[in-house]
Structures are given as structure tokens and as C-alpha cells.
């Protein structure tokens, strides 16, 4: 059941990834960018329906949106063969030229490669590109890139149209799988793609042609695909291609395109005649001799296919061997490629399929795996992570070394996971699905995200796929994650309010109209481990603990009181969390129906209260994590909390498992990374609580503190089974880790009792009753 759900999520995201990973470019202002995009659209009549919507961001975005979306003039056909000399521009220039990107946005794309150009830490060979050299040599520097962003940047340094012209069809298709194309090269790329589609069946056999066609679909944006279909139809080859390559048609349909509708009625007879003739050719070519020849021709291509496509091909061949009439069944084999393991098409991840497995089993906590589809998007937004990582590794030469072998795979995976967490933190699965759709819709979106990473992806989401509207939002799309306040204030900040909000949000009617992500999003802060996953898990735990009034676990009663989105009670009117409450209510309702709920739903007031405390608790936790992080950096003698460690390593929100309590997230685990001299490695767990202790009676204070300490000990103390694979290498193989001390830290300030005698008595009592837990009050 879960697996199915997954599959469908993957399916929804797949195209986005492949496509966006495929491409990257922002043509210079004078000839590229929006103008050409508009032109590309104008050649395809039905595209009008996808014109960018401008509903979002009335104040900020409208000006820019107008500029970008409407001021573009249809370009001339001469664009197709325009030559341009290499510009030697970096990614900044690319961004800036593409739409007057604000400085902050440019800055956020990460370090700019200095001269000489390089990709993935490898300098481009001197003299590159030499247009008289082989396609292999022309393509090589792109293949060393570690992200679509780098591919995009590298494209700015060369005369892309000329380079593309120098490539053979297959090399061009390969280039298309690496990152979004620069706009002025896009049409040429699509020409080459079309050409390969047209001749592949004859040259390599239908089966091989099918896999190529699927790869092309997967690595093209929606606007590319429309163009390719148009070109095929123009050449009167569309119907034939669809007939010969059922996998092609299936892949297109899964992308929501209806290729069959484009087959021109008028030319039908002619086409059928042609198609039949070609079918005949194909049949002929299926003789063993011809087959061998086709296979021979396909051989070099085959080795360069991403592993999943190679696998799919093998599968198709096996089916064909098993079942002589399996010609058409090949479709199902490619089905698997298309909707099974989309990660692979991105070449650098593709090099380490085992790495994907690694991600599955390790890097992410069990509970976090649910969000695996996000990885797909991480590929898109991985640019910054990869860069960061390369930088973070420090010493010179490390980047080069990183590029090969297991280390590189590890590094990439870590970077990807990081980005995945970031994205996963701020939106739900439906949101991701939508985002995937926005990205794959156009090259422009692909380039925007490839250059801007996760921030850009979020901004794009916020702007509902409208790239022009997304630009001004970008620097503020992800509260908290950057750790810095928004670069722009004023109107921009006000407009971004819809992105993810805690304090106050749009009125329900507006919210309903815009389908914004839930307000929980504002609580996400990956810097301290508060991913969406963790936030939700913690909220669920807090909900169980909440003492507010509840409705009983009775389906009839719950049905009767079921809240309505459009008709909140007066006290909830205009409250940004009303929608969230509805979701909570409905989810609990389902659980009650299935007999899985342990408690009924909280009433609205109780839920509001819970959320207030919850937000406060997370804020406190965040502050404490930062405090601990600072503490860890101090010389040992000066540390306030971590003096018992030689080299403390802090890990936040670590999934830990204990018999009876299941999977929990320890707020912070501190692990000795220094020498351990034979003894067990020192481990301490921290648990943070925001609880109003100020109004409690002496007895209630004691009871509460003891209860909290017991819970902390039970969940995070004694012996833990640490689930985070990256930590497991530090510990014995069974993963059983003794925890020397658990510290329970309460938020102070107005929450703590004003009388210290009372407070210290409770702390002392807790110390006596729950040894192993130390209580601190901030």
C-alpha cells in the first residue's frame, strides 16, 4: 500500500526531475530569455493556454511580471542559425541577463567560478571548445559538471548554438540530459532530438529507438516536447513515430500531452503510406543480420545510457527472448524506467545507483524516507549543496578527488539529502507534485531553479510556476533556512507572507484561492534539524499530550461537528491555522473510522493553544541548539554544557529507537568524536521543553518535572538504538549506544517559577527520583 503510494508520487515527480536536471540556461537579454521563450510559444498555437498567470503578488511582482511576461516580442526565425561568439560570462551574468535578477538572488547562486572555466572542480581543457574536434571532446567538460547549475554556467562561456551544431544527434541528446539548455540553443537541441527520433528506429532497431525516445521525453521540458512534436508533425513523421515507438507515445501521454491529436488530418493518407513503407523497412531490418548491424551501431550509445535505461533495455530484450511476439511489450519495460527510478537519468547520480540504495537505507531516518520523492527535486536544487560541500571539504585538491569513486557518491548524496530536507521541510507531497509540474513546464523554470537551487524552487512554487513572479520572491521563499533576514524588506516581505507563515496569513478565502503550503512550514528550520518531517512528528507527540477539551472518538459525533473550510466559527475567522485544523480534524476522523485513534479531536481552542505552545517550544529548541553549537566550538574549559567532551559532535533531531517507545527524535545528541581510550564513547542527549512552570503549586511542579525527566530518560536515555546511518560507524555494529546523561532543559524567562527555592527543590527531587537525568532551567 505504501509502496503504491510511493510509486504514484514518484510518477508525479519524475518528469520534473529528468527535465529540469536535463537543462539549464539563460540566454543573454538581447536574444534569449523571455523573448525567445515567447517566440517558442508563439510557434505553437495551443500554447496560449499556458501563458503565465499573474494572480500572485499584486504589489511586488506585477511590475516585473509584466516586464517579463508581456514585453517579450516574438523573435525572428533567424534565431535558429544565429551564431554568437563565446562570451566568457559566469552564472551571475546569466541570471542577471535573464531578468534583472536582484543582487541577492545572484549572490544566492553560490560562488562564481573564476577564470579559467571549470566544472565539477575540473578545469576546462585549454582551447575548448574547438568546434572541429570530436563531439566527445566538445561534450566532455559538461560531463564533469556536478549539477545542472554548473552546466548552465558553463554554457554561458561558449557559443552554444555553434557547439550544438557541431554535435551529432546522440551527443546533443546527452547534453540535454545534463541541465537546461541556454535559450538560444534550445531549438537546435530540439532539432537534434527530433532528428534522432526520426532515424533511430531505422538505424538502431525499434527496441533501441524506444529507449532513446523515452530518454528524450524524460530530459525535455514541456515546451521542448511541444516543439519536438511540432517538428515531427511538420516533417510528417509524427504519426509514424508514435506507431513505431509505443513507449514514446506512452511517455508523452504520461506527461499530459496528447500527441495523437497533433497528427494532421489532411496528410493522413500520405502518412499512412509512408508509415507502412517504413514499417516494412523495420520488419526487414528485424532479420538477424540487420539486427546485428543495428546493435553494432547502437553499441556505443548503449554504454552511455544512464543505468536505468540500460536496465530497461535488458528487460525488454529478455521479454522479447521469452516471448517472440513481445514487440509491443517493450512499452511496459520502459514504463519501469520512466516511472520507477527517475533519479538515474541524471548522469552523476546515475553513476552510483548503489548510492540511491544507500540513501534509501541510510542517510535518512526511517521516518524521513516517506519524503524520498523530494530527492528528485533535490537533484534540481542540488547545486548549492554540492558547491557548499565542495567548499566545506576544505583542502585544495579535495574537490578533484571528490569527483571520483565512492567519496563523490557519498558527497553528492549528502548534498542531495540536505536539499531534499530543505524542500521537504516546507511543503507537503501535493506541493512537491505541483512544484515538479511547474519546473518541468518550461526551460525557463528549469534554468531558474538550476541556478537558484532550493530557494528558487520554493519561490517558483510560491508564484505558482510563474518564473517572472518567482524572481522577486526568491530571496525570501524559505524562512529560517538561510539564517539571515530577508534581503529586501517592505513590500517584498509583505508579499512573501503567503509563503509560509506563522504569525498571520491570508484570510481563508484568499488562502483557498491560492492553495498555499500549510502554516506549519514556518516552523521548519533545517539548520537545527527541524525538517517538516520532524516538525510534524513533534506536533503529533504534542497533540497526544495536549490536555485541551476533545470531541469523543465517535464517528457520528465527529461527523456532526466536522468543520468546514468556508465556514469557520467566529473565533477562528481569519485565522491562518483554520485550514491546518481542518486537515488535522479530517485525518483524525479517518483514524477514528479505522479504529486507529487513541484520542478524539481537540476542539479548535485547544488546537490553537497547542499550536501556540508548540511554536514557542520549537523556537526555544532552536535557540538552545544554537547555544550548544556555539558551546561546542569553545575551548573545553570554557564550555558551559559540553565540558565533559573532548571533541563534541552535535547531531540534531536524531532518530532513535528504543523498545516500547518506537522511533523518536532526540532534540540533540552529543557524541564524543575525540579519542575514547578504550571506554565507551561518551554520548549525552538533550531534551528541550517550553513549559509554563510559573503558576504551578509546589507539588505539581515536582510531579511535572519528574514526569518530564522520566519521559526523557525513557525515550533518549540508557541505551539507544541510533537510526542515523551516518552515525552508526561511530558505534559498535549492533547500533546499541549507552547514553551517559540526559539533560532536560526548560525554557526560563517568564515560564520559570519566580521563587528559586521552589524551583531548586523540584530539580533536586527530580535528581533523586530520576537519576541519570539532569534538569536545567535556562
Amino acid at each position, binding site marked *: 500500500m505504501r509502496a503504491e503510494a510511493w510509486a504514484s508520487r514518484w510518477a508525479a515527480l519524475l518528469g520534473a526531475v529528468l527535465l529540469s536536471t536535463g537543462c539549464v540556461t539563460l540566454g543573454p537579454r538581447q536574444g534569449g530569455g523571455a523573448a525567445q521563450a515567447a517566440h517558442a510559444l508563439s510557434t505553437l498555437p495551443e500554447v496560449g493556454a499556458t501563458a503565465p498567470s499573474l494572480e500572485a503578488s499584486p504589489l511586488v511582482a506585477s511590475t516585473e511580471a509584466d516586464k517579463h511576461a508581456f514585453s517579450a516580442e516574438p523573435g525572428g526565425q533567424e534565431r535558429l542559425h544565429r551564431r554568437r561568439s563565446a562570451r566568457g560570462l559566469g552564472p551571475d551574468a546569466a541570471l542577471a541577463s535573464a531578468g534583472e535578477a536582484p543582487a541577492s538572488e545572484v549572490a544566492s547562486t553560490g560562488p562564481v567560478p573564476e577564470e579559467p572555466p571549470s566544472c565539477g572542480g575540473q578545469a576546462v581543457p585549454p582551447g575548448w571548445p574547438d568546434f572541429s574536434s570530436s563531439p566527445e571532446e566538445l561534450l566532455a567538460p559538461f560531463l564533469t559538471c556536478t549539477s545542472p547549475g554548473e552546466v548552465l554556467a558553463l554554457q554561458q562561456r561558449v557559443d552554444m548554438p555553434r557547439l550544438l551544431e557541431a554535435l551529432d544527434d546522440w551527443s546533443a541528446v546527452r547534453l540535454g540530459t545534463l541541465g537546461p539548455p541556454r535559450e538560444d540553443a534550445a531549438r537546435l537541441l530540439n532539432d537534434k532530438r527530433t532528428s534522432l527520433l526520426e532515424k533511430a528506429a531505422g538505424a538502431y532497431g525499434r527496441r533501441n529507438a524506444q529507449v532513446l525516445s523515452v530518454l528524450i521525453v524524460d530530459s525535455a521540458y514541456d515546451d521542448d516536447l511541444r516543439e519536438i512534436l511540432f517538428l515531427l508533425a511538420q516533417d510528417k513523421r509524427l504519426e509514424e513515430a508514435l506507431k513505431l515507438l509505443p513507449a514514446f507515445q506512452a511517455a508523452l501521454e504520461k506527461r499530459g500531452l496528447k500527441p495523437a491529436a497533433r497528427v494532421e488530418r489532411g496528410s493522413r493518407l500520405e502518412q499512412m503510406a509512408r508509415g507502412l513503407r517504413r514499417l516494412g523497412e523495420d520488419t526487414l531490418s528485424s532479420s538477424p543480420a540487420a539486427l546485428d548491424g543495428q546493435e553494432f551501431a547502437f553499441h556505443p550509445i548503449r554504454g552511455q545510457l544512464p543505468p536505468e535505461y540500460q536496465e530497461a533495455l535488458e528487460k525488454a530484450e529478455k521479454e522479447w527472448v521469452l516471448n517472440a511476439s513481445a514487440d509491443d511489450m517493450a512499452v511496459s519495460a520502459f514504463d519501469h524506467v520512466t516511472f520507477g527510478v527517475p533519479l538515474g537519468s541524471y548522469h552523476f547520480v546515475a553513476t552510483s545507483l548503489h548510492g540511491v540504495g544507500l540513501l534509501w537505507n541510510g542517510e535518512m531516518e526511517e521516518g524521513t524516507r516517506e519524503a524520498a520523492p523530494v530527492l528528485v527535486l533535490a537533484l534540481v536544487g542540488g547545486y548549492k549543496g554540492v558547491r557548499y560541500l565542495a567548499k566545506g571539504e576544505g583542502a585544495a585538491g579535495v574537490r578533484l578527488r571528490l569527483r571520483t569513486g565512492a567519496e563523490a557518491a557519498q558527497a553528492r548524496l549528502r548534498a542531495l539529502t540536505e536539499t531534499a530536507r530543505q524542500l521537504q521541510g516546507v511543503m507537503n507531497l501535493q506541493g512537491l507534485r505541483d512544484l515538479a509540474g511547474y519546473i518541468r513546464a518550461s526551460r525557463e523554470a528549469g534554468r531558474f531553479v538550476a541556478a537558484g537551487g532550493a530557494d528558487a524552487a520554493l519561490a517558483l512554487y510560491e508564484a505558482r510556476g510563474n518564473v517572472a513572479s518567482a524572481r522577486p520572491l526568491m530571496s525570501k521563499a524559505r524562512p529560517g533556512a538561510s539564517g539571515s533576514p530577508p534581503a529586501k524588506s517592505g*513590500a517584498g516581505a509583505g508579499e512573501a507572507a503567503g509563503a509560509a507563515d*506563522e504569525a498571520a496569513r491570508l484570510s481563508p478565502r484568499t488562502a483557498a484561492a491560492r492553495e498555499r503550503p500549510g502554516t506549519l512550514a514556518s516552523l521548519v528550520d533545517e539548520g537545527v534539524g527541524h525538517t517538516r518531517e520532524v516538525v510534524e512528528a513533534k506536533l503529533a507527540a504534542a497533540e497526544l499530550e495536549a490536555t485541551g477539551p476533545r470531541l469523543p472518538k465517535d464517528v457520528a459525533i465527529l461527523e456532526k461537528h466536522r468543520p468546514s473550510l468556508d465556514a469557520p466559527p467566529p473565533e477562528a475567522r*481569519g485565522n491562518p491555522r483554520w485550514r491546518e485544523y481542518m486537515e488535522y480534524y479530517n485525518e483524525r476522523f479517518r483514524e477514528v473510522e479505522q479504529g486507529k485513534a487513541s484520542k478524539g479531536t481537540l476542539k479548535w481552542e485547544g488546537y490553537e493553544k497547542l499550536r501556540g505552545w508548540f511554536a*514557542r517550544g520549537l523556537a526555544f529548541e532552536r535557540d538552545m541548539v544554537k547555544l550548544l553549537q556555539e558551546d561546542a566550538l569553545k575551548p573545553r574549559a570554557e564550555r558551559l554544557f559540553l565540558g565533559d567532551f573532548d571533541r563534541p559532535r552535535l547531531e540534531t533531531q536524531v532518530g532513535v529507537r528504543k523498545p516500547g517507545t518506537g522511533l523518536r527524535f532526540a532534540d540533540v545528541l552529543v557524541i564524543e568524536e575525540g579519542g575514547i581510550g578504550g571506554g565507551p564513547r561518551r554520548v549525552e542527549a538533550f531534551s528541550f521543553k517550553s513549559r509554563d512552570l510559573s503558576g504551578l*503549586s509546589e507539588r*505539581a511542579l515536582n510531579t511535572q518535572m519528574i514526569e518530564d525527566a522520566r519521559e526523557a530518560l525513557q525515550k533518549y536515555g540508557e541505551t539507544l538504538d541510533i537510526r542515523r546511518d551516518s552515525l552508526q560507524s561511530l558505534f559498535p555494529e549492533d547500533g546499541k549506544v549507552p547514553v551517559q546523561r540526559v539533560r532536560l532543559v526548560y525554557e526560563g524567562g517568564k515560564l520559570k517559577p519566580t521563587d528559586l527555592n521552589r524551583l531548586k527543590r523540584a530539580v533536586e527531587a527530580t535528581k533523586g527520583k530520576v537519576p541519570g537525568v539532569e534538569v536545567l532551567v535556562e
Partner: protein
Amino acid sequence: MKALSVHDLKPEDSLLLIFDPAFESKAALKSELEPFFQALEKYSDGWMPDVIEGKRRRKYARAAIWKALEEERDENSTSIGLYRTEWPALDMSFGLWFPPLPPRLRVFIEIKPVSLFSETTRCSQFVEMVRTWASSYPVSHAMAHSTDDLNLAGSPNFGRDDETLFRDGFDKIYMVCWLNVFGPKLVEAVGRERMLSTPAHRVEELPNGSVLVVTRPTVADFASKEARRAQALAHAHLRPDLDFDTVLRTLHERSAMLAPVEPRFHPDLVPLLSRVVDRAASHERQRRIAELNAWCPPEPEEWRPAGSALPPDVDNPQRSLEHYSNLAEHLVALLHSEVPSVFKATPESLTDADFYFWREEFPKSRLREAIDEHAVPAIGAYLGEVLVRNLGGRWIPRQRLEEAQVLVGNRVWFPFVRARNYMRSRQSLLDCSLTWLYRVAERHRG
């Protein structure tokens, strides 16, 4: 049968007793504890508990106590609460620790207000109760004193960290309270004779070797000159290493901190500041009043003369106004459950909001990004709306929120800038309060 919590009363001083004798039950628990409750019932006139709380709340009765202690018992301890349903408020807990914990009684009593103990009889009854208890249950140290004074004195740590506190306890005479029971160890450390010759209202050797020292007949006037002198005399006597004058000076300083201060707040800010003061801990209250008496809010800077207002630069002013109104609505959404008056959008609503943000320590306890991105625009818009509605102001919309202005009389105000300044810190909530800006704008309405 709702118990009256000490926290329900306005912040004022209380009497605190801490009594934790070693106690190992050898015979029937009930018979061993009888004397304790007998003494409690006999000497607690005026503050006698009337309800007890275990798993359930019951009327005070011996049988109910045994029942509750039984109910609450876990593997190594039990405890009950004893409260009153009427003024004065009582917070009392009675607990027992059993092996393997160090076996002992844990008794805590807070009676509020301390002024109840200005009567000599009530005080001497209280002393009698503690004397009886200390005679039956030998204690290493017990004390009763003003809660405020204890906190100002740094009790219970007296400058030590928690680890040392829990390890050493009250291992020397850090402080002399109104009522003190010094156990044999402390008596020995000081010297029995010296202890028994302490200058005090009452000094009595108990059968088990402890010494009871009561500095004065009453406790409520602990901060008076005479009381401080008595306290200093006793302390210097028991701690010959301390200088009497220094001890006395310190005590007088504490008294000064607790001496009532008449609030003389800025008239525009009385409604806000008096609520701020009410949130202070009782032992800090007077200092807080003095601080706020001296404090004067800085003149708001978020304005320009009307003549140099920024001209509107938006294409669709109506849309901007709707936007501001929407943002202001966000604040209503945010606050209405805690601050219902925000619906009214009056100057009083601003004061309520000021107090709310201050009380919640909003700038510190919420995510900075959430504040900057959501709270600030909402607050700014709301402030602007209040100026518009109550002072006949007019929005001058701008593309950037920070440049948006409200024209009132001969000034234009920048409510979003104010909101940003306002949300910088807890102190800036007072320095740049919404209330204050409103009042100044009102004065310059012309």
C-alpha cells in the same frame, strides 16, 4: 472546592517554610505521622488547609490524608498537596521518600500574604508548630522567612552552582531567617554554647540536639530597621567571620529594594506600564516601578512633516489599501483569542497588543523570520488602520511597505517602520510602543 492558588493573588510577599527532616518509618506510618498533623491542625489558625489533593481532591481530614498518601505512593515516594479554598492562599506539600532514596519527609509551605503574620499570636503559634515538628522529626536545617527576602538573599544556592547545592545543602550558616532550626551538625560547627547564646527573640535547645532560633516575635516586619538589626546580630554572632556592619548594610539594601515605590508613570503609558509592573516577580516589583518611573519613552522618529511626504507610487491605490487592510486583518487573526479588543481597532486595542507582545516576550520567543515577514507587516498595517480610523488619518500607499505613510494632521507616519523598530527586542516594545506613537500622533493632529 476550587483551591485558591498562591499564584492567583496579586504579586506580593509570602511566608515560606521548608522542613525536610530525615524520616525512616519503623512502626506504622500512620502513628508516626500523627504528631505532624496534630501540630498542623493545632497551630495553623488563620491559614489551616481545607482541601487535600492526591489522585483526587478531598476535604481536609486525617482519614483522607492517609488515603491520598496511599494512592500516590509509587516505588519509592509519595506526596500530597494541601490547599485552602479561601484567602489567605496556601500552597503546602507533604511528601515522603522511602529507601533506596534517602528516607525523609519533604514539607513545603507557602502562605500568602506574609502580612498575615504581623500578629504576634499567629507567629508564635507558627513557631510552636515548627518546634513540635522539629522535636519529633530531627532536621539538619529548617527555615521560615519572607519569600522575597530569601530570593534577594540568593537562597538556596547562595552563590554556589546546583551541583554543589545538592551535594552540600545548607552546610554553613549562609543566612539567618526569621525562624531557624539548626541541626546537630550545624550546632557543632558553630559551637553549641555560641549557638545557644545567639542574640535573638527566642533560642531553644530541642531534645534531639537541634537548636531553634527565632529572631523576632513577628515576621511580617522582617524588613524593618529593628528586624534587620536583630537578623544581622544573630548572623554575625553565628558567623564570627562576618562583619556585623557589612551584614547589616546588605540587609538594609535588601529592605530598600523591597520598600514600596509610588508609581509615577508617564500619563500616556499608565495603562500599559501598570500591567507590565504586575507581571514582575514580587521581589522585583518595587525596583521595576522605580525603573519605569525614571524611564521616559523616546520621542517617535517614524514621521516626516506632511509637506515632505513621499508621493504615492502605486498604479492601483485601491488595491494597496485593500492590501493594508488585509495585513491588518492578519494581526486580528493572530491576536484575537488572547487580545479580543483587537477587533475594535481603538487606541486601547494598541495598548492591549503592546502588553500582549511584551508579556509573550514576542521578539525573543518567536522565530525572527516569522516576525520580520509576518508579524511586522501585520502590526504596521494595524497601527496604520488605527490611525486612520481614530484620528482621521489617510493612507498614502507606496510600493514598499516601509515607505507607506499615514497622514495625520501635519505629519505623515510610517507605521511599518515603527512596527519594525517595535519588534526589535522586548525593551523596544516599550521604547517604541504602538500606544506611544498613537498618543504623539494624536497630539500633533492639529
